[in-house]
């Protein structure tokens, strides 16, 4: 018996070594550069949704197009964004294998720039070298404000300017109770009360709440309208010549007092603090709450299978469920401008020609041809185009893309934009209804407040995480365990002094001043 076991082992070892060997030669290999007419090998490391999978080379029409058009052999490694992504990227960098192009986030990119991993892009990312990028997505001014540490080494990936952030309310519940759409804060609270106390779904049970949100188990949710009510919109704003960190501002005292009042009324879903992102939408879909904050243009579209409408109808079995957008502060300011998102970085270790080529390809992806190919497939096969309208061939798309590992999402890492509007095109989607269009109109009409215009980072030695953690602890303690928010000024002082808030926010103010040209200061303790 031992002998057979031994033989099995040896055979397996041989098989596995053979497998490992051929894989190295066949798949993912790099073509030698020196040959005449040889393709330039490029390596990128990007993000993709967890289910995405690039198919074999012959079925990946995007790769084929890119390789032929630019004379390259593009290898893309991809994984969902998170700690694993970071670890892999850092390992690649330390072992001398920095990808030519890679995706990052604000915090990490700051470190990569500091360590010299990111290449300076002053001459690489310009309106001349990347015309599409600047034409459709990012202005030179935005790009300038995006820089950190006085260097010019990162650029944001194209981002959607409008994130469609709005409260949604169960209109059918309002109708059942004879209420009208809330137009201001007090009416919103009244609606919450009614939803909690008056059994809006008519099932005889007291099982509905006015409002739900998510705290992730870690913080006060900024979904609570009380923040905007007191002028604390978004995370950072400039008021006059003052830099404001909304979450540590003195006005938080009134915000928390108001929230306590609302919670004491029992209108907020008690699970909100522990709920993770996504669970608040689930609660809404289960018919457990009447008001929820949501993002995304098609969140409440009639035919979006992942959206509130369809899901709520499915789960509650109530076909009359109707989520309509509204915002009590639509006229004064609902949120801050969308700031540029995450950056792409270029390796400082790669040869110049590879970088130049990569930049060309990136710009192509940001332009009409590349965008259409990576989002909707091949013209004629997967979609048809009439003037400015794109009509998708559902079966072809499903067969070649969705069922083929949904691989286009890998190429969409650079342009995670849900619709081609910025390019002046639109999708002819027969499933969009008049109601859907009204929703978009409503949200488009909301007033948006300017952002501080630049990303801010901390310096070595500053413990931002410690400050935010203590801040969250304090806020939650006030809301849940203390009589009122009268200790907030004292808490704020502790945050500013003991936890370094003064230094951190003054430094932020400095960065905003430098980027905007206007002097802004921070009033600490």
């Amino acid at each position, binding site marked *: 018996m031992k002998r057979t076991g031994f033989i099995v*082992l040896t055979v*397996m*070892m041989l098989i*596995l*070594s053979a*497998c*490992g060997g051929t*894989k*190295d030669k066949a*798949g*993912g290999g790099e073509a030698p550069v020196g040959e005449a007419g040889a393709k330039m090998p490029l390596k990128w490391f990007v993000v993709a*949704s*967890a*289910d995405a*999978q*690039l198919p074999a080379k012959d079925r990946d029409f995007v790769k084929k197009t890119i390789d032929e058009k630019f004379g390259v052999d593009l290898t893309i*490694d991809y994984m*969902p964004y998170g700690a*694993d992504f970071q*670890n*892999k990227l*850092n*390992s690649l960098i*330390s*072992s001398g294998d920095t990808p030519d192009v890679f995706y990052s986030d604000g915090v990490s990119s700051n470190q990569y720039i500091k360590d010299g991993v990111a290449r300076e892009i002053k001459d690489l990312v310009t309106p001349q070298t990347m015309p599409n990028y600047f034409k459709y997505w990012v202005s030179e001014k935005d790009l300038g404000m995006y820089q950190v540490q006085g260097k010019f080494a990162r650029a944001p990936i194209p981002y*959607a300017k409008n*994130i469609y952030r709005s409260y949604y309310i169960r209109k059918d519940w309002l109708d059942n109770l004879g209420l009208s759409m809330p137009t201001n804060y007090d009416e919103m609270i009244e609606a919450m009360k009614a939803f909690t106390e008056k059994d809006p779904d008519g099932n005889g049970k007291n099982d509905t709440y006015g409002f739900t949100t998510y705290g992730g188990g870690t913080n006060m949710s900024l979904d609570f309208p009380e923040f905007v009510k007191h002028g604390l919109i978004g995370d950072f704003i400039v008021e006059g010549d003052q830099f404001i960190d909304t979450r540590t501002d003195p006005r938080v005292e009134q915000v928390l007092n108001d929230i306590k009042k609302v919670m004491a009324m029992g209108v907020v879903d008690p699970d909100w603090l522990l709920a993770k*992102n*996504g669970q608040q939408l*689930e609660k809404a879909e*289960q018919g457990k709450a009447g008001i929820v904050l949501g*993002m995304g*243009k*098609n969140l409440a579209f009639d*035919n*979006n*299978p*992942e959206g509130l409408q*369809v899901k709520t109808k*499915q*789960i*509650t*079995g109530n076909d009359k469920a109707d989520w309509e957008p509204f915002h009590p502060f639509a006229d004064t300011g609902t949120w801050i401008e969308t700031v540029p*998102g995450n950056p792409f970085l270029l390796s400082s270790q790669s040869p110049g020609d590879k970088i130049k080529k990569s930049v060309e390809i990136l710009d192509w992806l940001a332009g009409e041809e590349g965008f259409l190919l990576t989002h909707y497939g091949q013209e004629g096969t997967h979609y048809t185009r009439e003037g400015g309208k794109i009509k998708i061939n*559902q079966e072809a*798309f*499903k067969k070649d*893309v*969705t069922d083929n590992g*949904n691989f286009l*999402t890998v190429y*969409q890492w650079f*342009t*995670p934009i*849900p*619709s081609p509007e910025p390019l002046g095109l639109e*999708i002819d*989607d027969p*499933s*969009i209804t008049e109601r859907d269009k009204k929703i978009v109109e409503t949200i488009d009409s909301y007033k948006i407040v300017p952002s501080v215009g630049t990303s801010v980072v901390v310096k070595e030695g500053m413990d931002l995480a410690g400050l935010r953690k203590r801040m969250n602890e304090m806020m939650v303690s006030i809301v849940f365990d203390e009589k009122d928010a009268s200790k907030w000024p004292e808490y704020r002082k502790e945050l500013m002094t003991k936890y370094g808030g003064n230094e951190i926010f003054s430094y932020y103010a400095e960065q905003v001043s430098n980027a905007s040209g206007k002097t802004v200061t921070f009033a600490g303790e």
Partner: protein
Amino acid sequence: MPVLFKKSWSDRLVDGGIYAILAFFGLLTLFPLYYVVIVSFTPYTEVLRNGGFLLVPRTFTLDAFKVIFTSGVVPRALGVTLSVTLLGTALNLLVTTLLAYSLSKKFLPGRNVVLMGIVFTMLFSGGLIPTFLTVKMTGLMNTIWALIIPGLVSTFNMLIMKTYFEGLPQEVEEAAKVDGCGDVATLAKIVLPLSMPIMATLGLFYGVTHWNAYFPGIMYLNDRSLYPLQVVLRNMIITPSVSQELAVPQTQLSALPPESIKMATVVVAIVPVLVVYPFLQKYFIKGMLIGAVKG
């Protein structure tokens, strides 16, 4: 097992108590497994309808499992993990046994130094990036060996085996030596057969580690056809982030139930492990037959 000649009333009571406690604990631990299986067979809308928690399913669906097994990647990853588990565990046991056996000999000069050196590695670790660099330097990148070699010996397991060997009565080995057996023969013919419980135990520990391994797969492999099961299964769980909208035409968004798929992946990963264990348990029941050997 203790041997009793007489069972008094209090003994029977204690017996009853033990059975009761074990039954209770067994049910308690059955419960989460039951829940996972139920959810994996239920459409998610049904789960949500019940407030996210379900005990008795009303509708039954194989959709989640269909998604997993028709994906193309899962069967292949299953094969990879199976090979790695079998081969890896065999190698683990081999190297660990050899090492533990020698280290169990207290008279061996240098033993203590080696032991301290090994325990030191359990406490001090260079971290992620240095290990990655070492794996790269030794040419294991993107091969199946990257899933086996970096974890070749688990200090914990090795120490357990060493302790076990130290607990074996010396007379047995001495008898073998007197009969003319060298170290190799003693180990192979005498010690190993007596060590089946520990071999089964550590075989299980190592095997389970290989089966559940996720991290080495994503760090050291670029070729996705070499991906082991856990990596592939985790990738099946679609987690669309709210901020990064999937740029897919609305009608193409598939209404796949995320929670059911999550549970189905758990079921797929757990079932083999649960099924294997009872087969190994027979090794725990056999005691040592010292008497026979002595004779």
